[in-house]
């Protein structure tokens, strides 16, 4: 039993990371009907920005919460800028073109970020400094949780609640919902659609950056291609929960994290990456719109 509970703790931790990344996919899709394939690489950039911020501040010499939060904030701000730039210079010019053109652009941006990362940071892995001294807490019954896992859970939960607040209780959130409903109608109501789209990209990238820093805290090995697999899996998580649906992304992320950890723990680690796609196939067969998604009729 304690083994199962420990796996659950591990799974929920990973799941909350997937959820953070999945939110970015889902928001952009909800507003633009675009799968932003470069999103996983923004997560990678977040980890690297965090690394350089931590080195620059010398945060590892005297680990404290204030510095760790500063590292997180710098990484999030940096990726917010990256998200804005990507949308403005890569996606905006092709917004009126076919969906396929936008998709290919997204793949291009993804490859650009990955190989640009290899050029800039080098292909060999870097090790994230310990900006929070690791401590373990026994939860009783042989289950332990590290303070880094707690930080991941608390920070991601806080960010998700913040996002919920923005989307449901602010003017900008209202505008986002309006744009996701219909660009034309929103524009007629005096909403600046361009600005809302930019804002959405920035928001998604900021969340991905937070995920990058949180993962790097816990698993200190970071390299330029680290975003590919989590990016893919978070995308699957978004589809699982219902693409375009914010609570769905969180649910999908958690299901994904727990499923993965249980497969490794109880079946075989070789299926670790396969389980994501098995889930994807199953959900597309059973509920193509996702767990919380609404089935929409396709205009032909």
């Amino acid at each position, binding site marked *: 039993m304690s083994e199962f509970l420990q796996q659950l703790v591990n799974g929920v931790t990973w799941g909350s990371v997937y959820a953070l990344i999945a939110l970015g996919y889902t928001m952009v899709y909800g507003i633009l009907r675009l799968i932003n394939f470069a999103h996983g690489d923004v997560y990678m950039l977040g980890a690297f920005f965090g690394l350089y911020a931590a080195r620059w501040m010398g945060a590892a010499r005297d680990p404290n919460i204030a510095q760790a939060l500063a590292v997180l904030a710098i990484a999030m701000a940096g990726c917010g800028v990256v998200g804005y730039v990507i949308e403005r210079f890569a996606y905006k010019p092709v917004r009126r073109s076919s969906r396929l053109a936008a998709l290919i652009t997204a793949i291009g941006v993804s490859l650009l970020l990955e190989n640009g990362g290899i050029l800039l940071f080098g292909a060999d*892995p870097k090790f994230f400094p310990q900006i929070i001294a690791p401590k373990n807490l026994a939860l009783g019954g042989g289950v332990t949780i590290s303070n880094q896992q707690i930080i991941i859970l608390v920070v991601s939960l806080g960010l998700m609640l913040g996002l919920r607040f923005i989307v449901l209780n602010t003017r900008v959130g209202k505008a986002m919902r309006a744009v996701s409903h219909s660009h034309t109608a929103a524009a007629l109501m005096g909403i600046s659609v361009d600005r809302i789209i930019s804002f959405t990209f920035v928001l998604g990238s900021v969340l991905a950056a937070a995920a990058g820093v949180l993962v790097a805290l816990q698993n200190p090995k970071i390299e330029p291609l680290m975003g590919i697999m989590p990016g893919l899996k978070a995308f699957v998580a978004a589809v699982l929960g219902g693409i375009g649906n914010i609570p769905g992304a969180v649910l999908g992320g958690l299901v994904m994290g727990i499923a993965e*950890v249980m497969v490794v723990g109880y079946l075989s680690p070789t299926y670790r990456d396969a389980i994501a796609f098995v889930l994807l196939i199953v959900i597309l067969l059973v509920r193509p719109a996702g767990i919380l998604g609404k089935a929409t009729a396709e205009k032909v």
Partner: protein
Amino acid sequence: MRSRLGLLVGLAAWLGAVSLAGCGGSATEELVIGEYGSLSGSDATFGQSTKAGVRVALAELNATKEGKIGGLTVRVVEEDDQGRAEEAATVVQKLINQDRVIAVLGEVASSRSLAAGPICQNAGVPMISPSSTNPKVTQVGDYIFRMCFLDDFQGWVMAKFTAENLKLKRVAMLKDVKNDYSIGLAQYFTDAFKNMGGQVVYEQAYSAGDQDFRSQLTAIKARNPEAIIVPGYYTEAGLIARQARELGITVPLIGGDGWESGQLIEIGGEALNGCYYSNHWALDYPDPKLQEFLKQYRAGNGNADPDAIGGLAYDAATVLFTALQHMAEQDPETFKGLSSKMAGTEQRKAACKKLRDLIAQTHEYSGVTGVITLDANRNATKPAVVIAIKDGKKTFAAQIKPQPPA
């Protein structure tokens, strides 16, 4: 049902990119030797140490013989295989077909030596792997040599140390299923450990490049082993140690020479204290040749200490130079075939074969990693040392000699 096609096209196209290497060639008469290793990728210190070790050997040649053997200047072409087996095959093809090398030095990882070995074998170019320990590496053919012990011996060493020195009976195994070295070593350890009355109570696996080992370690922890055997590479071993300690696992982790890297402690930190791994040498061994090499290496590498991988690379290069030297003295006529302008001729083929024969005759050569005698299967038989990690330092724990054949 929105644009499923788009999703599928995207998923299919979302794969990695391919990179291509440059080209080379030469007009002057020289001896061209190839060296390949993982200068980048997840186990980059393997390639970097190999390169540094070969460079020390070359610097010595430059200091003592003006960099010449038999009147020809020695030039080493260095290639990066990015730590990928398929890339190793590509760069070795390039070394043989474009640079027209007479011999190849590398690799560290058995998976990559196994990818490049058949290419050298088919081309009739001798390849000396400094530190690939998987038995299959030299079984590729008679042109493939190695400077180190084999994993059947290394697995036995780890088992003996665990059973006799640490007096442990029940261990768990966590191996890398993407790695020939790891799979082989795990098997040899298990067989030897069973013979010594121990048992591997639980086997778990991961894939090279994984970040998170908590689920495997949680499953291992539930079975209460007295130690965890991690026959993998240093990058993962360091992370595994950290995460094991986080989950409250306090038993030692025991590994093989794949742990040997200056970065091991940097990655694993305090979590590695109380862990052991088998290795090719211990730096504090009072051997004059070794201490001289240390001086040279530190001078050329910003005072950094070499790891055993660098020492073995130095030995591989000097064994090759020695064989070339013998050939130039004993058979200058055939030796001419090794010159770069003879590339692609029948003389070159004959010369490479002669070089192969001379390397195979390496007998009681005293290298910095011990005395090297190549047996009929082109393998070296050497004692192994076990390193204990204490307070973030690697210290000598035991030397274990090969068993005399029963």
